[in-house]
């Protein structure tokens, strides 16, 4: 019974933003680098790819994969789950009026990687605290650029603190754009 209630609460909390009209969905492409963690993750060049989900007018959820390109093409992939809040104002109004064109994001989340246990398991390994100082664009205008995102990553297994740096990321929105409000 408790499980059922939990499931219902989860479904309601996930789908309530959809009914509130501020849900949006975008595809993300960009760059990622992981600095400062000794003994793991030697590649500093990664392709960031994933989706960004707008949950409310201020909150969004990011599901991002970071795949290393150098020295081996798509050699290793880690996954980031981040909840982020728009700090300067509404990212989407859920209507014909666009949200703020320039914004900053603050977020927290986890990283799932195979950096522990000799790379054998894909586990939640890092706790993340992220700052994106500048994002330009919004879901209504179909695209957004996020620049210079810095994320502090705390490895819960090795107690090391490292930095994830996303130079630039492009979001291409498929749902929640102006086309949905014509």
């Amino acid at each position, binding site marked *: 019974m408790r499980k059922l209630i939990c499931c219902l609460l989860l479904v309601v909390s996930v789908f309530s933003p959809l009914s509130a009209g501020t849900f949006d969905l975008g595809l993300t492409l960009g*760059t990622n680098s992981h600095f400062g963690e000794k003994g793991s993750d030697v590649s*500093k*060049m990664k392709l960031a790819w994933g989706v960004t989900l707008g949950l409310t007018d201020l909150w969004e959820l990011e599901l991002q994969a970071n795949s290393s390109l150098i*020295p081996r093409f798509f050699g290793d992939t880690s996954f980031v789950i981040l909840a982020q809040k728009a700090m300067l104002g509404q990212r989407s109004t859920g209507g014909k009026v666009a949200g703020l064109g320039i914004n900053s994001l603050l977020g927290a989340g986890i990283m799932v990687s195979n950096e522990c246990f000799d790379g054998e398991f894909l586990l939640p390994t890092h706790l993340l605290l992220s700052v994106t100082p500048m994002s330009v*664009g919004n879901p209504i205008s179909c695209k957004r650029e996020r620049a210079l995102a810095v994320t502090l990553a705390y490895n819960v297994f090795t107690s090391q603190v490292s930095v994830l740096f996303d130079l630039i990321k*492009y979001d291409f929105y498929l749902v929640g754009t102006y086309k949905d409000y014509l």
Partner: protein
Amino acid sequence: MKRIVLMVVAFSLLASPLVGRSLGYGVGFYGQSIIEEEAASSSGVELSFVYQPWLLPVGNPSLIAKAVMGTDMTGKLVFPYVEFGLSVDLFRTIHHPFNLFANNVVAYDPAVSVSYHRDAEAPSQLLSISVSPFKLSQKDFWYEFFVPSVSIDIQTGKVASWGIALIRYTYIFK
């Protein structure tokens, strides 16, 4: 006298592109994977200078000088190579599906480049070939995404390294 006139005309013709809006600099995010020694592979910042004498709709050439700075697989700061070469935009069109990358209407002009590649460590002479399949350009700006390249040893014909410039922004200031 005729020779002097010819020389002045020839000099003017050769020098005229120099006064065009054709000089620029670029910044990019590069990665290079060394085939023989994976630990020497590196990634980091790429700086480039561009000289574009004309703006031809088809086969538009540019001269490019490039230097890179990054970290290798051990985290050591390295300056792995410089390149000097020729880039040719195959064609230019505004009718393309990649306008979603920019806020203005931009032209799509995919390019190929051939460069002399000088590796800081290796003494061999290398030829670098790269393709820029997602190159977008405005009057004073180029955006390039996902530019793969390969360096070939001129003497042995073997592939020495391959690389990717994930993004490259070039600003044409003159």
